[in-house]
């Protein structure tokens, strides 16, 4: 399904991927030397991260989930998880948590092999996942550092009320900002925040354009496997920076060019030249076997046109943008609006929208074995989406970063069956239309 696939052993990469790799690498470098250079380090989570705010205090930003997934892609997470289990953490605990704790126990070396500093502050702005709170409780115990906590009310009724917004703003003003000022020794400057948010909004515009380019046929992007790269900077330490703005402008240009040429997504084996099946995917990918997992899709001409995972660090395609005119309000709305903070019915609505707007042929759930927060209810969601859209749904189970829970033969077997089921149903639909 790909051109130049077997002739080249080199992995194909988009130019923007190379740019992004340099950004991530530079951030790990900055983290490794932060304390030597007298800089303070913050640690925070992807969903609901307040990067623009942290930038106001010159923190070098560390994100433990990114460390865990980067470690998994470099085949290091398995050892970290075993280490965490040796110190008493159960087999059923979230494997991001165990990878992080194991990494700390094994000498606090980051995914690139450079040391990770002990953070000066933990910013816990948890959205929807209660495990985050326990995770930072454990981390705080290890690091004995300050913690700023932002309670983000769950969108149980599928909407953000003024009360919810006010509650978050109040915490920002009374708890989070004073703590960050104290730890960093830098006075909060709201104009600096406005400037950062202005950069964020530019990057968000470009990201949405890129993700929505998948509405075209063929889609110039894979909005799951490729989408993960596209979301990297905006989900992590770069949103609000000029680097991120430049990255998204370059990415948009690159995708626009592919779109103009009628090309499909770039896979590690080259450009996908036949789009047979379009999918919407719910759930994170498996990181330990990321390329093998992706290959199971592109080898069959399957492209993911929309995914919920690319919304866990912020939902922008329904119009939300960080707003320099209303800085704290927009930070509150951002946290409240992350996909992880959505109720099950809201998630179903969003996924049904994607199925229709992106003209998908099927809906697939990759359920995470060690994620109790988000795996619950996924089968119910699947049934509902199947019923509402009339499109076939599939279900597989893997894990985030525990290599023991990825069984390639089984996953491939189930995916192939699912893809063939979609094609059979499509063929029947086509035959009926022709008749």
């Amino acid at each position, binding site marked *: 399904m790909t051109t130049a696939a077997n002739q080249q052993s080199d992995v194909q990469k988009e130019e923007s991927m190379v740019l992004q790799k340099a950004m991530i690498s530079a951030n790990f470098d900055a983290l490794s030397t932060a304390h030597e250079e007298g800089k303070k380090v913050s640690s925070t989570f992807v969903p609901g991260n307040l990067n623009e705010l942290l930038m106001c205090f010159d923190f070098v930003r560390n994100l433990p989930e990114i460390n865990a997934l980067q470690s998994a892609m470099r085949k290091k997470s398995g050892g970290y998880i075993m280490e965490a289990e040796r110190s008493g953490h159960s087999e059923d605990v979230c494997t991001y948590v165990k990878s992080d704790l194991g990494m700390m126990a094994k000498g606090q070396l980051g995914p690139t092999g450079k040391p990770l500093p002990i953070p000066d502050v933990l910013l816990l702005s948890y959205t929807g996942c209660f495990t985050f709170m326990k995770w930072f409780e454990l981390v705080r115990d290890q690091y004995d550092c300050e913690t700023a906590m932002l309670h983000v009310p769950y969108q149980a009724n599928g909407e953000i009320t003024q009360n919810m917004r006010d509650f978050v703003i109040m915490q920002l003003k009374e708890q989070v900002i004073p703590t960050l000022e104290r730890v960093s020794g830098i006075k909060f400057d709201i104009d600096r925040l406005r400037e950062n948010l202005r950069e964020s909004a530019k990057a968000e515009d470009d990201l949405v354009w890129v993700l929505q380019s998948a509405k075209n046929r063929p889609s110039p992007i894979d909005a799951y496997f490729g989408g993960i790269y596209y979301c990297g900077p905006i989900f992590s330490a770069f949103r609000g920076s000029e680097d991120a703005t430049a990255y998204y402008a370059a990415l948009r240009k690159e995708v626009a060019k592919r779109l103009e040429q009628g090309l499909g997504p770039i896979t590690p084996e080259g450009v996908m030249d036949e789009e047979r099946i379009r999918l919407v995917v719910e759930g994170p990918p498996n990181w330990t076997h990321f390329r093998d997992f992706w290959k199971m899709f592109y080898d069959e001409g399957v492209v993911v046109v929309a995914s919920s995972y690319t919304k866990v660090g912020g939902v922008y395609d329904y119009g939300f943008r960080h707003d320099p005119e209303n800085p704290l309000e927009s930070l509150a709305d951002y946290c409240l609006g992350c996909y992880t903070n959505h109720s099950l019915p809201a998630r179903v609505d969003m996924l049904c929208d994607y199925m229709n707007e992106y003209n998908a042929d099927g809906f697939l759930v990759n359920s995470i*074995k060690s994620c109790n927060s988000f795996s619950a209810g996924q*089968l119910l969601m699947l*049934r509902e989406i*199947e019923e509402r859209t009339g499109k*076939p*749904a599939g*279900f*597989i*189970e893997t894990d985030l970063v525990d290599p023991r*829970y990825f*069984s390639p*033969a*089984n996953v*491939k*077997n*189930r995916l*192939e*069956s*699912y893809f*063939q*089921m979609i094609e*059979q*149903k499509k063929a*029947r639909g086509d035959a009926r239309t022709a008749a």
Partner: protein
Amino acid sequence: MKTYIGIDLGSTTTKAIVLDEEKTILGRGITNSRSNYQIAADVAKEEAFLDARFFLFRKLLKEVPALKDQLDEFLLNFEQDFRLEQYLEQLKELRRASMASAGDDRLGKNGAETRALLEAVFDTLHDEAPGLYEPGSTRKSDFFRDIAGSQYSSASEKATRTSTIGFDAMLNVYDRSIIDVENLVTNTSNDEAKFMSALARTCKRLDNLSNMLDQLRAPLKSVLDTEMEETYVIGTGYGRATLPFSKEHIRSEILCHGLGAHIMHPETATVLDIGGQDTKAIQVDSVGIVESFQMNDRCAAGCGRYLGYIADEMNLGLHELGPMAMQSTRKVRINSTCTVFAGAELRDRLSMGEKREDIISGLHRAIILRAMSILSRSGGIHDQFTFTGGVAKNEAAVAVLQELAFENYGEVTMNVNPDSIYTGALGAATFARRAVVH
């Protein structure tokens, strides 16, 4: 004659179906999957073609007035005699491989005595062979590995009682040799000789047919001379990726089981297939197209292998588990769905004085409870409900499934086809036919 072949490469057994252009099932073949899927596929296909010859022969013999009242009896005897011929041929190979293995330098000075003992054991196996294939005889398995293994083990056990060669040493020779024999490509050039020899054997045995040998040779010869062209082959099942088939010749077992179940029972809405390492719950529409499916993930607890493991633990044949469980009078709850833990639980219950049949019945319930969970994930049980796969041959599993299906989903018609093990292969053969005919 154009034929369409479906091959289902399961983790335990490999099945093949041969269809003709009119969708008639000409033949079915089954073999154990071994460690070599290619050989297993070849053997299953060859067996299906042999079965097709029997089918065609039956058709021709219907026109022979002298056989009118005795046709079924004749064919039953004839098939058994043919199987005997096959068994003897493979036994010869096993003898050769075992003697070669015993000639190995590793046996040192014991080599000569081992070979002498092997000669005696294989003579016994040869003499006992006809008894195994008498009409009405029962065997723990239909596969050469199991039948010969059981006979060899018993004969060796007796023979080593008066010898300096140990029983383990004899088993060692068998284990090394059987793999070679199993992995031999089926020799089809002798088929005609085996058919003819079996025919002579049958006519000799059945009193009133002794003078019909010449009359029956001609139709048999015409059947054996019928050319059966392998027009299109579709592979499915776990081993499908290892077959030298191009992508167009491969279908997932989900699609094949869905279609196969629909062909066997056209009103099928829900299919449950319990195979060696997979349990699949499939919902199909009115023409056999898969609507949704669920399979066990990450763990094969509660699949057919579970029963195989239990049979081994209790030193029983797989075929014996169902009938034994049916004798149960008391419910014993087995909580573990883990195959290995179930073995531990089994020993624990035995030590507590529970009866074997009650424990085995409890184990059947445990496996079906797990299947019920997968069924509910797939959307539940809808009328009609078709149960397929190797475990569908187990009467105790069928009985528990029927009970639980009724408890959870009310009255539904449950189909269990005697040939349910061939469901995937039938679906694959139908896809093969469609690839050419449509």
